[in-house]
Structures are given as C-alpha cells and as structure tokens.
C-alpha cells in the first residue's frame, strides 16, 4: 500500500522549529525533518540520539588490544629477534604503532557503522521528499498512515498557519530512508 505524507516546506529556521513543536503538542507523528544544515534544537525536539561515540569507544578498545596482542605475538612468540639489545617485548616502542592503528581502527569501523546505520553507501538512492531541503528549505514530513482525513487537513493547516511556504501531499510506494 502506498504511504501518504504531508510535507511542509519552510523558509526560515524559527518558523520551522515552532512548527515542529506545535505538531508534537497536537500529537501528530513527524516522520522526519530535512534541513540544509544540522540544527541542534531539532535533535532535542525529535529526541534523536546517536550511540556512535559509545561504539567508537569499543572500537578503540578493540584496536588497542588487538594491536598490542599482534605485536606481542610477532615479537615475542612467533619469531623473536633482538633489536639493539632491547627485550623482545619492548613495550614502550610498541606504543607508537598501537596509537596509530587504534586511530585507524576507530576511523574505519565508525565510518562503516555510520554507513550501515544511516544506510549511506555508493549508489544508494534514499527517498527524497523535497529536493530543496539540501539547498535552502527546511522540510517537515508528517506520516499520515494512521490519520483520518480531517486530521491530515489539520496538520497541513497548522503548518500553513505557522509560516510554511508550501504544503505538499506525496505518495510513495516504497520509502528508502
């Protein structure tokens, strides 16, 4: 079944933000909002949180432990060689490589996780509700699936009153997001 969305397009950040608040107060289900740049208030209003930092911490831990384990294995267990009279496990000089490989692990793993969670990868085509959102418009998309006709109208009217420059209704067979 096609999903129908009520889309409000705004010119100004303030009007856009107050619209989100009003829609939420009246219990409309905001599917998502689209902006040309990140707005922190939006994250608060829509209660968006990212657990990437936690994941990155564990990637770092994994990086440190695996690098040190690898260095210990190669230099002490697998093929010990004396370099300049230093002990096989010359821990202080392993630190440099450990730091760098930890940073590399965190970077690559976080990027991969970001790409997976946000569904962003080469050639991916996510649904674009309004192409002007990457230019100069702020876009609110309201999910109308569970609403009757009067409340759909009401959502549109509300956004109009709060300064939307355009109200659009769009149908999508399949939504990629």
């Amino acid at each position, binding site marked *: 079944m096609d999903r129908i969305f009520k889309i409000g397009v705004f010119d100004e950040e303030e009007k856009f933000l107050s619209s989100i608040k009003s829609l939420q107060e009246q219990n409309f289900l905001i599917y998502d909002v689209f902006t*040309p740049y990140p707005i922190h208030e939006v994250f608060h209003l829509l209660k968006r949180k990212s657990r990437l*930092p936690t994941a990155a911490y564990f990637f770092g831990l994994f990086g440190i432990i695996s690098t040190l384990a690898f260095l210990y294995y190669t230099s002490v267990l697998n093929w010990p060689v004396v370099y300049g009279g230093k002990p096989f496990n010359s821990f202080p000089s392993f630190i440099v490589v450990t730091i760098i490989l930890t940073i590399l692990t965190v970077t690559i793993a976080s990027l991969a996780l970001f790409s997976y969670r946000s569904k962003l990868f080469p050639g991916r085509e996510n649904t674009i509700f309004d192409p002007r959102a990457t230019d100069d418009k702020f876009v609110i998309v309201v999910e109308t699936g569970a609403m009757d006709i009067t409340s759909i109208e009401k959502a549109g009217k509300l956004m109009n009153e709060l300064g939307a420059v355009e109200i659009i209704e769009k149908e999508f067979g399949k939504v990629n997001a």
Partner: protein
Amino acid sequence: MYNKKIRGPLVEGNKTLGQITKEVMKPLEISPGVWWPIAFGISSAAAIYGFYAIYITVTQGIGTWGVNNSVGWGWEIINFVWWIGIGHAGTAFSIFLLILRQKWRTSINRSAEAMTVFAVISAALLPALHMGRVWLVFYIFPYPNTRGPLWVNFNSPLFWDFTAITAYLLISASFWYLGMLPDLATIRDKTTSKVKKAVYGFFSLGWTGSSRHWIRYESLSFILGGIAAVLVVSVHSIVSTDFAVSVEAGWHSTLFPPFFVVGAIFSGFAMVMTLMVLIRKLYHLTDYITDNHMDAIARILVFISLIMGTAYLTELFVAWYSGNEYEIFTFFRNRATGEYTLQFWGMIICNALIPQLFWFKKVRRNWIWLLIVSLFINIGMWLERFNIVVTSLNKDYLPSNWVSYSPTHIDIGVFLGTIGMFACGVLLFMRYIPMMAISELKSVVHIGNKKED
C-alpha cells in the same frame, strides 16, 4: 565565544541560504576562464616530466640520483618531509579548529583538506621510490610471509613512519569525503544535467539531510576530529624520529618532535594561504574567504614563526652548551658558516624574519604581501629540511667521508613531478568539487550578520 565586533562577520554580504548554494556551486557550472587550462597544462607537463624521472629511477636505480655513500638521503627525503609538512594543514585546519570550535574554519577547511590529501600522496611516493626496488614495497607490510615468517622491525621509526603516513592518508581522505557528502547531495538536487545528477548522486551515497543523517554525521565528525587530532601531532613527531633516533650530529635531539610538528603546521598554513589568496581572487569569493580569514591565518603564522625562530636559537644554544665538538662543528661550522651557508641563512630569513611582517595590519590585509610572504615561508621550510638532511650527513665524524651533495636532473624531475601532480589535483578539485563546505557555511552565515548577535 565569537565576538563579531572585533572579528567581523564570517560571511559578508548578508547572504541568503539559496545564494550560498548558488555562489559556491558556480565554479562547477561555468567554465573557469582561460587560466585554468593553461595552469592545468603546465601542471600536467611537470607531472609528465616527473613520471619520466620516476621511470628512469625505477629502471636504472637510485644511482641516477645525487645521493652518495655519505649523503644517503637527498632531495627525495627533503621533499618527502616538506610535502608531509604541507599535508598537515588540512588536519590542523579542520580538526584542531573543529575541536576548538573556531567557526572561521568553515570557508577554508575543504580546500585545506583537499590540499592535504594531494600533498600526502605526493609525499608517500618519495620514500617508496627511495627503497630502490619499489616493486618490493609490500615487504614493509607485516603479513605472514614465507620468509620465516620474518616480521618487520616494530621498534624502527621507519616502520612507524610508514604506519603513520598510511593511516594519515586514509583518515584525512575519509574525513574530507565525509564532509563532502551533504554538498554532493546539494549538487545532485540542484543540477540540471543528467550526467552530473547520476555521478554526484552516486557519490553522495544517498544523503537526504534528514535529522537522522545529521545527528550521526555530527557525531561522527567529532569522533573522527577528536581522534585524528592526535595525528596532527603524532605524524610529524614520528617523521622526526626517523632523524632523531640515529646518532648523527644535528639530528640526535629531543627538540626534534615538537620542532617538526610546529614546522609542519607552519608550512601547511603557509601553503593554505598561498592557495587561498589565489582562489579568492580567481573565483571572486572574497565574501566567503574574507580579509578577516586571511588576517587570522597571518596571525597564526607570525606566532608560529616566533616559535620557529626560538627553535633555531635553541638548537644553536644546545649545540654550544653541550660542549660536544661534533655538534658544535655541525651547527657553527657546517651550517652557519660552511658550504651551505646560503641554505642556513635563507632558512632563518624566510622562516623567522620575513613572517614578522605580519605584525603590521597593512601587510595582513594586502593580498600581494600575503602571497609573497607565504611563498617565502614555503621556500624557507624547504631550506630547513635541506639543512637538516644534507648538512648533518655530508660532513660527519670521519673527514675522509666528507663530500659535497648536489641533485641530478632526475632528483629535480621527481620533485617537479610531485609539484605537478599536486597542482593537477588541486585544479581538478577546484573544478569538480565545491571548494567550500556549503552546509557548514549555511550554519554560520548568521554569525555576525544579525542585529541580536
């Protein structure tokens, strides 16, 4: 916090969001003028000459270079350190200034990061060539092999260096690309050409600008920024240990890591300034890269120049104070008064004295002066690396080993080639990728422009 009364608006001319998109995208849509093909032609010619020099090096060996038994490291290592230094600008700009919440970085960081990627590629080429048998370059990867398995020496600065530069290249390239995603999506949605829509659409990875995308994007930028900030300091410290760990007069010094890091940021910022002065003139982007931006870079440069001057004096002082005759010989006889006097005093003048002109506001606000001084710094930093590499090696402990060093045309060809490749990269970047982070500009455009701020 940002004080607009003192520092002025970040973007001049009260732009609307739509205007920003349009003006930053303009260089991608219109033909850039006759200078672009000319510049690209010259750069390609230099790059082709470089490929020829590399071909000779690979087929005939590094005997075609000016290096000899005493001066085993010549122009290639000088240029390697020089390029890596320039490559520090991107991370210094985008990452240090991101973490310090310095919003003026927004109009410059994209180009600085692009420059970093191309400079690091140029740099990485040189030590690989210096291995002689470049086709065995994979020996440096620690992989289970049939030679033992014989692992690489994890205690060696040369291996640290390899790790650091590989990681640096990968990380700065990913940071650059991540920052580009929203802008590639903007082009995808704005362009009328079908080919561009498909290409930029493919590379924008399906970015929509939804709140879910943005929060993860911000969070990832800070993770990468925070963790890569270590790299700004670590990469050149590690490069310096290539020198500092060996027992050569003039190299064996604990001053080297901080000295190299500061020097790297110095040359990187100078190269950013050189390019920015040209870009803002050629593309008429003075509203975005304002005089205040150039002023801020100039202030950083004058500050770093003082640190450089102090470091040079410290080196001389410590050489004298140590009482070590080899140190004293290297610094006072071989560098300051010997065969390479010109390089030594050139370095002092270009790095420690000429940038002092930036104390004057008139100099900081005049683009010709900015260009001239930044070029002098680029030259001075090259001379510094020449001093470090050559004058420690050409006259060491045993006078029977003393030789002179001069490059051959193959050395010069490889250097010109790297400059050509770098320039080609920057020119292509200017033509096909938005030079400034459009989305970031939009988020700072109001700063200093509205009445209530």
